């Protein structure tokens, strides 16, 4: 019976303090969810009913009509597609490039390591507005006839992918290089002595070991890029080309003509992130704290 304290701690008897704490947490959690539940309620009620009875009233009829209307009228599927075209390549490219940098600085070069990571991480922390004016001009200047629909980097999915990759690779390189440094050095040393090429070292030995960190970062990046609002507002001019999050503000004027439809449209936009979050909550949270804790 050496571990007396452990079982005592686990089987805490019901104390008034605990009940108070749970009451507090339940009330606060509900208060936290209240704005979302309010939006959900508005979205499920017909506009005619709420305009007649007011929004604070007992609902007579709940349906998903507003959701289907919002989805069809504004052709939301098209905008979800736009997001997909941007987010998938951006996440994959960011992970590829940042893991290559991390591999280099964590395995081969320790002097440059600090300088390079400093540049990448600092860049990731800058407010986007610091660079937007020249970036906007640059995107207008670069002609890509035949490659993008607009013939320029401006107003193209490619342009958004590039800035997402450039910006987010800072954070990812930082997290991944910390992760890779914790892998035993003998592992790669031995492979090198055996004559494996650097690329094989990276692709077949180091990357597979980084799967947990990569999964966490992929989850985080998907949500971040999906949620991006600013880059697309400035760097995309055609409403049709906007990813869903940024399109929301155009759609709300054009198609979502009453508050109930706005609520439905906003919630529909949030659904993919919520699914990712509920399914991959652990990855998301660990990705977020992986960077913050080491830093």
């Amino acid at each position, binding site marked *: 019976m050496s571990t007396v304290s452990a079982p005592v701690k*686990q089987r805490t008897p019901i104390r008034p303090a605990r009940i108070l704490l749970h009451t507090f947490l339940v009330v606060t959690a509900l208060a936290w969810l209240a704005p979302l539940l309010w939006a959900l309620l508005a979205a499920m009620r017909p506009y005619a009913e709420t305009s007649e009875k007011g929004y604070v009233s007992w609902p007579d009829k709940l349906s998903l009509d507003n959701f289907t209307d919002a989805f069809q009228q504004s052709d939301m599927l098209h905008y979800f597609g736009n997001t997909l075209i941007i987010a998938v390549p951006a996440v994959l490219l960011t992970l590829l490039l940042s893991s290559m940098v991390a591999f280099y600085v964590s395995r081969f070069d320790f002097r440059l390591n600090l300088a390079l990571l400093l540049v990448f991480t600092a*860049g990731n922390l800058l407010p986007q*507005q610091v660079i937007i004016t020249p970036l906007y001009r640059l995107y207008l200047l670069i002609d890509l006839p035949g490659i993008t629909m607009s013939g320029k980097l401006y107003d193209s999915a490619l342009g958004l992918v590039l800035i997402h990759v450039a910006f987010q690779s800072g954070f990812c390189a930082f997290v991944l290089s910390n992760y890779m440094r914790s892998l035993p050095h003998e592992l790669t040393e031995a492979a090198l002595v055996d004559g494996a090429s*650097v690329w094989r070292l990276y692709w077949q030995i180091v990357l597979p070991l980084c799967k947990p960190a990569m999964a966490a970062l992929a989850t985080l990046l998907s949500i971040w890029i999906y949620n991006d609002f600013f880059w697309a507002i400035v760097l995309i001019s055609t409403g049709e080309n906007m990813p869903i999050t940024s399109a929301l503000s155009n759609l709300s004027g054009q198609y979502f003509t009453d508050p109930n439809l706005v609520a439905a449209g906003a919630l529909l936009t949030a659904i993919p992130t919520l699914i990712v979050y509920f399914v991959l909550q652990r990855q998301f949270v660990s990705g977020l704290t992986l960077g913050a804790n080491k830093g």
Partner: protein
Amino acid sequence: MSTDTTKSPQAAPVVPPAGTASVKQRPAHGHGRLLTRRDRITLGLMAGVPTILHVALVWLTALASIALAFTSWDGIGFDSIKWVGLHNYTELFTNNPQFWPAVEHNVIWFVVLIVLPTPFGLFLAVQLDKKIRFSRVYQTAFFLPVVMSLAVIGFVWQLVYNPDTGLINSLIGANKPGHYIDWIGDPDLNLWAILVAASWRHAGYMMILYLAGLKSVDPSLREASALDGANEWQTFKNVIFPTLRPTNTVVLVVTIIEALRAFDLVFVFNKGAQGTELLSILVTNNIIGESSRIGYGSAIAVVLLVISLAVIIPYLIATFRKERRA
């Protein structure tokens, strides 16, 4: 290609000489001496391509902001770029009715976030760290707003604040003509209304950061403190909080950056109309508005850049120094 270890490390392209020198000095730490020529090229590309992309799109554009801030340019042709010295700055500091309010609002944004939702997030984290039941359920509820985009949050809160149909005015009976409380339009109210939404999101974020920090607190510290007869508050104040120092630093930096980046919520609410001007909004208005004042907008961006770097650089240097010692 054979393993030519005698070859000078300078053969590596892209790789700056400073780095290769360190391989020579500390061979035990690097794999440098085992590399073939092809390996060095591969490595150069692996480090070089991402670095070029990042530096070109992030750092060169930041430098371009600094350069453009000394000019006047309407964006039509390079010939129209005129050097104006510090004119944009003097104009900004003395003549722009929106600049100082914007600075003030950014400062208020930071102060509110650090004073209200941050301690509240810490409080929630401490409670949820007590090995209580349903901890995950509570965490999910508080963290939910962090996952959603700020644009969606803006729309959701507009349903709360709408003067006619919103939750608050409907509840307090202020949705009739003559009684309106215009949460979004009134310049004395709108910033605070938006800050409630921003705090709603920030508290969950802080909670998660502190929860992770608390997990790394050595449990024996807590036991020792309890054995000494300290109560919960004393233990927290004297034992737990001091060990959370690294987390506190991260929280401070994250909060400052959030306050400087604040944009989406305000843009969705009222596009930064009177009462909610922010530096980020002013920069953006100078490029997507009809008046394209590139030099002027860049000067505002430089102000943002200077404030950000004043926070980012000391933080990162301290972080990396600590890491090197470890």
